[in-house]
């Protein structure tokens, strides 16, 4: 799907907006788990948690158990999250330093992380920190999270500008981590990554989008098991 002229102007239906992607990604988050949300679309998941689901949010800069707010604000600079937002203090939260914060990540104690991506491969490789032509990029906590969280969910737009595929056979951008992605939630699809067999299973499509519509915007052959669902 590198030559993509034929699909540029024929989306069969609207794609989900950024909030829609976040809302769908949030649906699979499990009550009581420790979760780290990356900046951008992932952070917006906090606004769409299913009823009754309470997460233990972790931010790399040293908070656990706060209430995540996606709205920026003029907060206290000493009470910031890793994305530069100002979280709401709630009973039962805790502050700690970066050593402890990355023990939690590296030690595999983060249940789920939701991250953005530039490219994801069929084997679950993730590239999300540098565009090669720029030659410089920012890693932050992404490599630690991607390599060590128990479950990695990617929340992103399905294609890059010009409908260039971001879901690819092999990443051409510098990797963030190998074989780490469990699930991909985009503006047109939900895809499970079977890392062991290097296969992608299309689970859901956006309303009005068919298997072929999604496949034509994906550079990896997708599989389907059972019924294809619709993203809600």
């Amino acid at each position: 799907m590198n030559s993509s002229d034929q699909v540029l102007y024929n989306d069969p239906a609207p794609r989900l907006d950024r909030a829609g992607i976040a809302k769908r990604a949030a649906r699979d988050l499990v009550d009581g788990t420790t979760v780290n949300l990356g900046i951008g679309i992932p952070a917006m998941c906090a606004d769409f948690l299913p009823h009754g689901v309470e997460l233990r949010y972790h931010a790399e800069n040293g908070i656990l158990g706060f209430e995540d707010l996606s709205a920026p604000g003029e907060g206290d600079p000493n009470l910031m999250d890793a994305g530069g937002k100002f979280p709401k203090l709630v009973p039962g939260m805790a502050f700690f330093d970066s050593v402890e914060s990355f023990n939690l990540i590296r030690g595999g104690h983060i249940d789920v992380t939701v991250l953005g991506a530039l490219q994801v491969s069929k084997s679950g490789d993730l590239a999300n920190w540098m565009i090669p032509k720029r030659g410089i990029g920012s890693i932050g906590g992404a490599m630690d999270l991607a390599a060590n969280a128990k479950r990695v969910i990617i929340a992103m737009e399905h294609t890059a500008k010009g409908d260039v595929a971001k879901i690819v056979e092999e990443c051409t951008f510098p990797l963030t981590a190998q074989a780490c992605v469990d699930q991909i939630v985009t503006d047109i699809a939900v895809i499970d990554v079977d890392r062991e067999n290097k296969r992608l299973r299309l689970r859901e499509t956006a309303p009005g989008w068919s298997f072929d519509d999604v496949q034509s915007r994906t550079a990896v052959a997708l599989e389907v098991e059972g019924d294809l669902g619709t993203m809600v």
Partner: protein
Amino acid sequence: MDRSRSVSDSGRKDRTICLTVAINKIINSFEGAVADIPSGSSVMIGGFGGAGGQPTRLMLALRDQGATDLTIIGNVAGISKTTGYGWPDHLDPIDQGIFFESGQASKIICSFPVPGTTNPLSDIEKAWREGNAEVDIVPQGTLIERIRSAGAGIPAFYTPTGVGTPVAEGKEHREFDGQTFLLETALHADYALIRAEKADTRGNLQYIGTSRAFNPAMATAARVTIVEVDEIVEPGVIDAERVGTLSTYVDRIVKRAEGDPLP
């Protein structure tokens, strides 16, 4: 017991793992908290040595539960029962020696397994002399760092401690900047029995004074962490600036009875 929910997860390294999240971590009895510990388990026991910070009620419950072939991991071990170390004079001290006295432990990994004198012989030394228990003596700083590494996702590290001593035998030696170091590996356990002053219902722990010691690191290094506390409070009672162990690390909480005569 409706304490946990499971989520199937394809997990790291392409192994299927089961993500179990304890929703209600509070267990009503010490017996219940250790009931499922099988024979052959490795069990970390927190504290430093002495009564402070030691999960004494959990230890007694595990002794009574009867699991055998245990590997005990602790720091100062078996000293209190023979010397009174770290216990008030009017009480009979309890320490890791109870698992050797009962024959439940087949191995201990610790830094200080015997007192200076051999009269009376401690339970650990007796079991060792009789060939009933293996004793692995580890420098204290290496022991705590190995435990910390297990919780922190670090499989191995280099340390200057122990070079040229018996603990260096069989270990990789490596020079950095002209100095020699030893490679030491992470030390995990199946269970950690730890002690804290307070827990909130989420599982955040607060420690007091010198009772921290090995407890916070052990909480991160075991598959299941069980904590004995004097008090359980609502979230928010423990100051967010003073949480000593994060709730994520704690699986089970048991409260001591009011007025428990044991320290």
